[in-house]
Structure formats: structure tokens, C-alpha cells
């Protein structure tokens, strides 16, 4: 019988669909009897999306203008 630690160590491969059928079966058996690990799985799965939203950035307008000017000058001097 897998422990919480065993199960949590398999979550990345499980979510990637890359677990062996045996490990998938063991993990499912553990999850059926362990609601904290079910919550853990759900929150582990939600983490990347939340981080992606938290870490989004836009280029400031002034920097965008400088980028355009930089590219125009470089491309013009090369042609």
C-alpha cells in the first residue's frame, strides 16, 4: 500500500500521464482512502495555472517604443 509520501512523489508523472499502469493503480487505491491526498492532488494541479497568472508581465509602453526604435535602427544600418 502506497503512503502519502509515495503518492505525492508520483503526482507529476501522474498528471503528465506517464505513470506505469501498476503505479497508477497503487496511486488510485491510495487516493480512494485518503481525502487529504485528494485535496493535495487538486491543489498541486492548480498551482502552475495560478503561478502563471501571478507572474504575468506586460512590457511598459516606453520600453516598447525603445524596442521599436532599436530594431528600426539596427535593421536600417544592416540593409
Amino acid at each position, binding site marked *: 500500500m502506497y503512503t502519502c509520501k509515495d503518492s505525492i512523489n508520483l503526482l507529476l508523472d501522474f498528471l503528465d500521464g506517464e505513470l506505469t499502469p501498476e503505479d497508477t493503480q497503487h496511486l488510485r487505491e491510495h487516493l480512494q482512502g485518503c481525502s487529504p491526498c485528494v485535496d493535495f492532488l487538486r491543489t*498541486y494541479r492548480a498551482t502552475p495555472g*495560478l503561478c502563471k497568472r501571478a507572474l*504575468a*508581465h506586460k512590457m511598459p509602453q516606453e520600453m*516598447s517604443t525603445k524596442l521599436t526604435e532599436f530594431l528600426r535602427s539596427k*535593421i536600417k544600418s544592416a540593409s
Partner: protein
Amino acid sequence: MSEQVAPAPEDRQEEDRLLLSRAQAGDMAAFEALVEAHRDKVFGLALRMTRSEADAAEIAQDSFLSAYQHLKDFRGDAAFGSWVHRIAANHALMRLRHRRVVQAAENEIKGPEFTDWGSLTEYPERDWSRDAEEKALDAELGQAIQQSADRLPEGYREVFLLKDVEGLSYEQISELTGDSVPAIKSRLHRARLALREAIDQFYNQGNPQE
């Protein structure tokens, strides 16, 4: 921090294909339109990786210039956005390799703790995954995530950013970093555990990690 309203990916890719073929024929306005469409993603990647606006601005310049110089070689078998994204990731990684930074030690990565017989020592008080999907992002939560990501050792932060934020495949990350796919997966898992822990603390204890 901001959320973008972007066209559907398939519309963006179709528009990029048209712009690309005009840019390859020498139409500078078409190239500038491609830059405008992808500059936020490129800048965001560079800023997340380097944590420096000045470095991110230079990486964006170098990446788009490099893309322009290789436009004619680009065969269009990948999306322009993915291509320029990988160029930027490469530039950002090269810049990081030249930096000497004080690294957090691997054993400082926070994650769940277990008893001697492998059970979680603390059970999650509640499942916040649905809140995370439905609610607008809380500014303090955003800050907690940022701080937690900043505390990760560089190799872990890079892998997490490239995979979970930038959406590169394990193979692409392996190509960029020179690390094996199993090593990348192992670091990604530990990075996710640390970030999940920070978010869990925010939701269940009402404050970010110290």
C-alpha cells in the same frame, strides 16, 4: 502584474503566418506587427527569468533582432511565437549563466512534511483549487507566489518558469539547459511542491510565507 486579452491561439497563429511571409519578403511593418504581438510574452519571460527590467529589455531587443536576422531560415514548421519564445529563453539562460548569484540551497526548498511512516504531518485544511480557478487573482497572493518563486534555487526556478509559465516541453528545456529530462522533472516537481505550499499557506493561514 496584468492579464492579457489575447486573440484565440489559432487566430493568432494564422495572423502570424501571414505577417511572417510578408516580413520574409522584406516588409518591415509586418515584422513590427509580429514584434508588437509577441513583445509582452518575450519581455515577461525575460523579466521572470532575470528579475531585472534592464536585462529583460536587452533580451527582448536581442531576441527580436536575432529573429529578424534568421527570418529567412525560419521554415514555419513551428509557430512564430514559440520560435521567438525559445530564442528569448536561450538569451535569458545565457545571461543567467554569466551571473554569479547567491543560490538558495536545495534543502531550503519548502515542501510538504511527512511522518516516519510516510503520512502528511499536516493535512490541507481546505481545497482551494476551485477558488484559484474562479477568482480574480488576489494581489497579496500574487506577491506570495512571486516571493516563493524568487526563493527557489536557480536551476529549479528556471525549470519551473520554462515549463509551467512559458509552456516549453521537457525536451525543449533539456535542449536549452543541457540537463536530462528526469533531472528536469525532479526539479519541476520540487518547485511545484514549494509553490503549492506557499499558496496553501496563503489560503489556509491568511498570510504568505515568511
